[in-house]
């Protein structure tokens, strides 16, 4: 897509690349980072407090109630899992498509994936009535004598999908990190550092006999992660689609959820990358405006996909002729909780339209704001879907969802967790994959590099 434009700006040598990328690991953090980290860490501690409060007092401390038995926890879970998808998409799918431009952002995006999935993982655990027993969801042999789990339950599929996804993403990420760890190790001055990164690098030495298997595994992991990432959000969408609740029980959910996931994920990548570029100016040469522009295009495209999904949902509801379905969707937009629907639409469908203009696609402030709006919208998308519960079959049960302190607490707190991890990552790990960027050095230079 951006064949001739340079992937790495400012005629760098291999050495320069190493220097640039290792700098954050080898220098002391500056004020901005420390301030952000301080804020994030505080939020994280607050988060732990809220979680403890909920676990200690009971789920009733949150807005969930009869008949709306799922609320902020599940909404935010789906939100974070969705965020995760962009990372895998960039590192795996674009890798399979041999999109060289991915190399600059792949590492950070994968990190985002891992942390997002970790953040998400807390919610299904915490939303249960008895979190201390949540391990019962895993099928392990036990003395309660024959007693297993219910493999028919989408929640159990979730357990498998999310845990597999987390495992594979972490492995994928780590395998990608090995050569860079080796680089850091070999640059290390003091022994402690040498030992730590030495251990992390597993004694990698970059001989071609190793590169040979390494590249193959990387390809395979990419190949495996691609269906995996698609399956994960498909299965998350099954949590809703498999239920018979009007507004949940729709076949469009898997593709719709995946589009939404990519949408929100890329928005989050843009948010983070713009910040990273501010925090670490030297990275501007690796994560270039071109990168960001491409991602903005994807954001707009997926934004329109979800927009299409919103529309088709209504059409199918009407076309199905099922009175409950019809009502569910009319109620979604014009019922007592319609406000959330309109927030969703304006954030997800309308706001990305600014990216029709190259000027905006390439403007850091614009894309930063839009990316945040999009993520707000995507949170509300999941909220709107979950809230189908508030008016279902028997009108006697109808109710409206009320946010309580704990709802806001877990939502805000989860960001604390995510950013703490991400900020640590920026300082501890090479945030751009050196061994992947270096081969692309010539891309876009005169002669266009060489490819066999």
């Amino acid at each position, binding site marked *: 897509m951006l064949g001739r434009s340079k992937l790495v700006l400012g005629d760098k040598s291999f050495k320069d690349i190493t220097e640039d990328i290792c700098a954050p690991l080898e220098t002391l953090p500056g004020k901005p980072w420390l301030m952000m980290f301080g804020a994030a860490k505080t939020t994280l501690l607050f988060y732990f407090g809220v979680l403890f409060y909920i676990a200690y*007092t009971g789920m009733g401390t949150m807005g969930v109630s009869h*008949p709306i038995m799922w609320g902020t926890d599940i909404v935010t879970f789906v939100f974070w899992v969705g965020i995760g998808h962009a990372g895998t998409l960039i590192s795996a799918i674009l890798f399979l498509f041999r999109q060289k431009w991915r190399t600059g952002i792949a590492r950070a995006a994968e990190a985002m994936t891992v942390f997002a999935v970790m953040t998400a993982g807390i919610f299904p655990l915490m939303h249960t009535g008895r979190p201390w027993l949540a391990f019962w969801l895993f099928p392990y042999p036990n003395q309660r004598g024959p007693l297993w789990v219910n493999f028919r339950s989408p929640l159990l599929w979730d357990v498998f999908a999310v845990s597999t996804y987390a495992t594979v993403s972490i492995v994928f990420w780590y395998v990608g990190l090995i050569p860079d760890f080796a680089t850091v190790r070999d640059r290390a001055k003091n022994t402690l550092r040498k030992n730590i990164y030495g251990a992390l690098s597993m004694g990698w030495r970059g001989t071609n006999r190793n590169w040979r298997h390494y590249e193959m595994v990387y390809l395979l992991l990419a190949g495996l992660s691609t269906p995996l990432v698609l399956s994960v959000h498909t299965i998350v969408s099954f949590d809703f689609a498999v239920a018979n609740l009007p507004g949940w029980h729709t076949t469009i959910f898997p593709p719709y959820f995946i589009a939404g996931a990519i949408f929100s994920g890329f928005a989050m990548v843009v948010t983070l990358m713009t910040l990273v570029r501010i925090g670490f100016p030297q990275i501007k040469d690796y994560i270039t405006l071109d990168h960001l522009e491409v991602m903005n295009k994807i954001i707009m495209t997926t934004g329109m996909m979800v927009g299409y999904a919103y529309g088709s949902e209504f059409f199918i509801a009407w076309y199905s002729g099922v009175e409950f379905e019809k009502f569910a969707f009319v109620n979604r937009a014009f019922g007592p909780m319609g406000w959330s629907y309109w927030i969703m639409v304006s954030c997800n469908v309308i706001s990305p339209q600014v990216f029709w203009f190259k000027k905006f696609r390439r403007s850091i402030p614009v894309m930063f704001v839009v990316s945040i709006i999009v993520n707000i919208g995507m949170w509300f998308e999941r909220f709107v879907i979950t809230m189908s519960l508030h008016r279902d*079959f028997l*009108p006697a049960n109808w109710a409206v969802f009320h946010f309580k302190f704990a709802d806001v607490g877990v939502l805000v707190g989860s960001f604390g967790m995510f950013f703490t991890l991400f900020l640590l990552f920026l300082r501890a790990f090479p945030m751009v994959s050196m061994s992947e960027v270096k081969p692309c050095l010539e891309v876009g230079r005169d002669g266009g590099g060489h490819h066999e």
Partner: protein
Amino acid sequence: MKDMQNNNEKKYWKSIDQLENEARFNEMAEAEFQTSPLKSEDGNDGLARRDFLKLMGASVAMSATACVRRPAQKIVPYAKRPEDLVVGKPNFYASVLADELSGAGLIVRTREGRPIKLEPNPANPASPKGISTRMQAHCISLYDPERLKQPKRWITEENFHDRKWNLLTWEKIDDEVIGLLEKENVTLITNNYSSPSRKALIDDFMAAFKGSKSFVWNPLVDSAESSAQERSYGKEVNVRPLFEKAKYIVSVGADFLGEDPRAHEYATAYAKTRNPDGEMSRLIAFEGMLSLTGMNADDRIRVKPSQFIDVLMGLAHEIVVAQGNGTVNSTTKAKLVEFADVAEKLHIDADLFSEIAKDLWKNRGQSLVLTGGTYAGVENAEDLYVAANFLNTVLGNDGKTIDYAKNNYTTINAKQSDLEAFLAELDAKKNKVLIVENLNLVYYGGETVKKAIRDFQDAGGTFIYMGFYQDETGDMADILLPIDHSLEAWGDAEFHKGVYGIQQPTIRPLHNSRSLEQSFLNWAYALQAGSKRLQGSETYYDYVRSYWKSDILKNSKNGQAFEDFWFELLQKGVYGELAENVNLPVRSFKQSALASISSGKAEGMELSLYTKAGIGDGKYANIAWLQEFPDPVSKVTWDNYATFSKATADKMGIKEGTIVTLDVEGQKVEVPAYIQVGQHDSVIGLALGYGRTKGGRVANGVGVDAYPLIKRVDGKPVFAGRKVVAAKTEKFSPLANTQGHNTMMGRQIIVEATLDSYKKDKSAGIHKHKFLESAWGKHEYKGYRWGMAVDLNSCFGCGSCVVACQAENNIPVVGKKYVLEGREMHWMRIDRYYSGDMNNPDSHVMPVMCQHCENAPCETVCPVLATVHDDEGTNSMVYNRCVGTRYCSNNCPYKVRRFNWFALTKGDRPEDTPREAYNPRVTVRSRGVMEKCTFCIQRIHDVKDTAKNENRTVRDGEIKVACEEGCPSGAITFGNMNDPESRVSKLFESQRTYKLLEEYLAVPSVRYQTKIRNAKRENTDHHGEGSH
């Protein structure tokens, strides 16, 4: 005896002693009867007391386990367990509950000697099916931690505000009282009661102290009825409407299905006439507020209380004058002519009005005109009754559908005006001792009573309160004496003339309490005063026995020896027959009685004070079950409220929860508003029984006290028709309403058809769906397969099942705060919908509990198999396994699952059920666990075990689930769907049967029968036709 044991199936006919040791029983009982009063009260005498103990083996063991007073004497170790007591097996005792205004025969279910639930006594000819909400509450009140536990005497002289109390022993109390009684006479006032022995005892006692005077009073007694009888027929008698014989019922403000003390009895009878395949009765309700009766009426017409008289006289005019039926003298005719234009005056559809009159005449002898109760408690309530009597006489119903043969209800022996008499007596200060027993006089009577008592005390009188709580009245007393709970004491009751029940204690008194009867016996004995019978009885048990021997058995033809009789009585719990099929001549109506009747002067808004099915007169306000019981009509819990019609509310800009000020001739109350569709536009309703100040931690501060709004015209209370001015305030207080939305949105939820369309098509109104083949094969259910049929046609929505279920299944109470958040826990709810014109809609009710679907959607989605099917088709909930993902609830189309959002069973909140009251057969659920209706699985297992031991299969109807048992009208039927002969299978075959949300193919095991309305209107969701 033996064959009697064989030919009855129910194990629980076992009485308090095994049949085997009948001999020992007799001799012991004999011995007891002869115990000399010379033996001291403290129990050292032994024999009588010890036998009495044996007699109550179960209870004794109980008192050993639950530590009560004087354990040294009473402990019976389980090593030598009393016969009858098998740990883990319930024992059943026949007893009665003589409520203030009604009585019922009961079976008391006890576990390890602990009464845990009341169940109806089928052997009782007079008592209704089912158990009312308040009866369940009565059982749990036994364990109320705030009961009065000790005799007390207050010591600080001056101010009433902070009074210091001395805990005293009964001996000390007795000394003091006896000392008083030597010199002084007694003024006694008690609540209504229906116990003949008690009456005899009180009379004996009063006779013993010349100049003593006893009164009986209750705030809700409707004494206008009997006085109207006298005015109409010359003889004061309280009559009994025979619903089972009435084909055409017109109720003018009489809520015989809801607030009437005997609503259960009437509902049982009325339900019999609602069979659409037989000759179905037709019910017309004229009323101001929306009552349960109005909700179930075939046609409902809105009239404000002050104009009820016009309705009755108007109908009389239609029948007698306009349609020229019946014969009346000219003066009467003239009087009736005054009411010629009632229809247009009251904006009633004239055709309908005259049609009603026609139908009444068509059904003469089989129709029934009713009025009375608080809704009709207007100033001229007596006129209403007279007019109704007139109609019933004209229509020849008198003697056919109205049994005037005798005083049917001996419970009603109070006159409202007795309060005045009592106050006068008090004022005269002849007697220096005032005893108030089991009657919260100060709360009911308000300031007047308070002042009277205060004056009495200032004049040196001693005020003794024998009560259950240290309530508003108790707080004023000089001497506070705790009385026994009816499950703790002997007693009896006369439900109907000639139908008696015996009240067996099922547990030793938990606290240091003593009944009025026992106290009187002790005092009389100590003073050597009163009749032989009075002094001759050591305990009230002796007294009851001697009374029955001498008085009740006397006039019975029963030849058997007293001890046989007594033993059989204890077994059955009841004695005597209800006179059936009375066919009495029509009494001559004194037409002069009509002379004083004049048309109601209706101006402005009218107040209508009423009582709710849950709280009633407020006696049980401290029982959280009742506070959280959703009102059958409004579905609101934990509050009383001023009800406004929709139109009025809109006009005044009032929303649900807006606080309004009601100004009733100077008295003001501030109370949140509730918008009650179907209410008359110029009526404001307000429930009595709330706003307790010393009712207990649960009762205090819930709602506002409406008793001060009752006006007393020469002693007669005016509940309805008083002029009220409502003013909107800016304040707001949300009402804990358990129902989200009130219309069915045109969905097939409650299917209803008119009788005519039903006659044409048995499955009228039911929309059948076509289904594709299921991808899965079905699971087979060999053996039993449990199912439940709910006949919406005989369900009146009273909600007794809800509390019965709560009592059986240890369902926690969450409190107003959490009901507001929608966290109530009832496994069973009664959905109430309106359809048609919102000014006077049709109301529809439907009990919804877990439907135990064959393809249960909840099961599929539970990740840990915490809810699965058992091989008898019930959807079981495995509490221990539940981690609380709540997915099951999300996937339940009926949303019948309840989640333990908090730990609600720790017993650390006032609302919590006392631990002793829990049913040991049912798990108490922990926090974070999902729960729901289990089809009373524990009962199923109990019966199956019994059947297994007798190696037979379970008989149809042998298993009674709690809701079925609580239902007065037999709307709920539980049984084995696999047995083609079972009632359930039969009902499922009926074409009226449909499945809720059938199209979702969950295939519920709970199925409903359509409601049939005997009305002219066509389909149920008719818009704009509702009003008449």
